């Protein structure tokens, strides 16, 4: 089961439109970092590009978006930010390939007609891919920020538990239990339930939501 992804926060969008260079620069940097991976994945899949070509095109997209202030044109009243960004990306990619007069496939070995790409628009897998990579990107950034916040503080054991319990690549039925992790890390635990001291781990579990995008209420993921 996956949760619906929350909205991009209002304050981040407001920062994009602000006249303050620092706030605006930070917002743009944040958007570029959060959306880089999903944009690369989408370009590679939809336009059938090699990974390196998709990376180049993504860089071009963000450079042009910042240079031409595309993101500041976003109007929250007219819809969500993610579809807006996708729309900008589609326009950018189409324009790039029209200019080139052709689409490269496999490093330029083959050509793909634009009409063929239009068909790919209807592929629901592309939307799922974009959302999945967006989720991965935001959650990875948030987890990194949480790790930085906890490391070297009293909350480090909670982070360790969170990391071992929630961020592993093993299926649920093969994960260590809270009790095992508590014993391993020397954290007191109440038998049979999530230990009170590990309530911090529960808290940590929710921290990614406020993680790297904590400059406002709707700039990343919120509950």
């Amino acid at each position, binding site marked *: *089961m*996956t*949760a*619906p*992804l*929350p909205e991009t926060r209002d304050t981040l969008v407001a920062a994009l439109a602000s006249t303050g260079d620092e706030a605006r620069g930070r917002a743009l940097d944040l958007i570029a970092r959060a959306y880089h*991976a999903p944009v690369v994945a989408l370009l590679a899949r939809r336009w059938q590009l090699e990974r390196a070509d998709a990376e180049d095109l993504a860089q071009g997209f963000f450079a042009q978006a910042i240079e031409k202030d595309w993101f500041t044109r976003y109007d929250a009243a007219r819809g969500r930010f993610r579809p807006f960004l996708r729309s900008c990306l589609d326009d950018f990619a189409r324009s790039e390939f029209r200019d080139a007069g052709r689409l490269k496939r496999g490093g330029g070995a083959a050509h793909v007609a634009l009409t063929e790409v239009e068909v790919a628009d209807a592929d629901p897998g592309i939307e799922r891919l974009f959302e*999945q990579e967006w*989720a*991965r*990107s935001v*959650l*990875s*950034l948030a*987890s*990194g920020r949480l*790790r930085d916040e906890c490391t070297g503080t009293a909350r480090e054991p909670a982070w360790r538990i969170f990391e071992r319990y*929630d*961020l*592993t*690549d*093993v*299926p*649920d039925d093969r994960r260590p239990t809270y009790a095992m992790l508590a014993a391993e890390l020397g954290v007191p635990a109440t038998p049979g*339930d*999530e230990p009170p001291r590990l309530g911090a781990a*529960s808290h940590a*579990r*929710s921290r*990614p*939501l406020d993680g790297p995008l904590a400059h406002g209420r709707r700039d990343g*993921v919120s*509950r």
Partner: protein
Amino acid sequence: MSALPDEAVRRLRSQLALPPLIDGRYAPQEIVGRGGMGEVHRATDERLGRTVALKVLAADAAASTLAERLRRESRVLARLEHPGIVPVHDAGVLEDGRAWYVMRFVEGTRLDDHARSGAGRGELLRIVLRIAETVAFAHERGIIHRDLKPGNVMIGPFGEVLVLDWGVAKVLAEEDAPRSGVAPAPMPRGSDPLTADGTAVGTPGYMAPEQARGLEVDQRADVHALGVILRELLAESPDPVPKPLVSIVTRATEPDAPRRYRTVAELGADLRRWLDGEAVLAHREGLAERLWRFVRRHQTAILLLLAYAVIRTVILLWRGI
């Protein structure tokens, strides 16, 4: 930090769906059930230190009729204090508008799974009897379940039979409610918002014909659903079904509501008669059947008499020789 693996992303996104600590008191732990209306979480009541079940409306349904359904369910459950109905402890609305309520956490087996696990016919009939008692209790308080089915009945770890999912229950207007000495708690009533547009609520296959057509229903809709449940449970057994039981099912599931049992209590009473070896009202017995039932009901005494007669005969013959 490097990109998280798929499993971690799946897990974190799943946790995003968990509601926040409600009122600083209920901490959701894991999703244990999910349906069209929302999700059920195993949660910890931090104040009392116990595990509870937390039912929360789905995130995208805060403003839908489902929200009213969940609120309705909590109110219905609150006025039905019965061993066969899971009690509600608390209710409220999240900041994002989603309704929630907290009830006793019960781990058990769905009736259909329980039936498939090899339960005997006698046990299954007694379970139907318990369902009938619970539903009859609700009818006495002017509440019709409208979605009885095996998936909405749980067999608890101590054998308790619990009737779940009262989300589409209908609250009869005072004048329509069956007579009872119990005054119902105040509750919005009158029109039925869940069927105001004439659409049917319930589960196809269990709904009475009038319910499926979106018409006004009374307690006989539950009689029909319980009859279908009984039929399905009887079909689990490889043995032929006794005619009186077939008659009970037939009477309960009559397409024409006036031809059914008038109440679930009547259906339960007929079922109890059969379990006690008595004649059931739904079935007209022939002489052979009546004789067989007499024999079955008094088989111990008859066997003793037969044994006595055989022994006496043997003794007499022995002396005669």
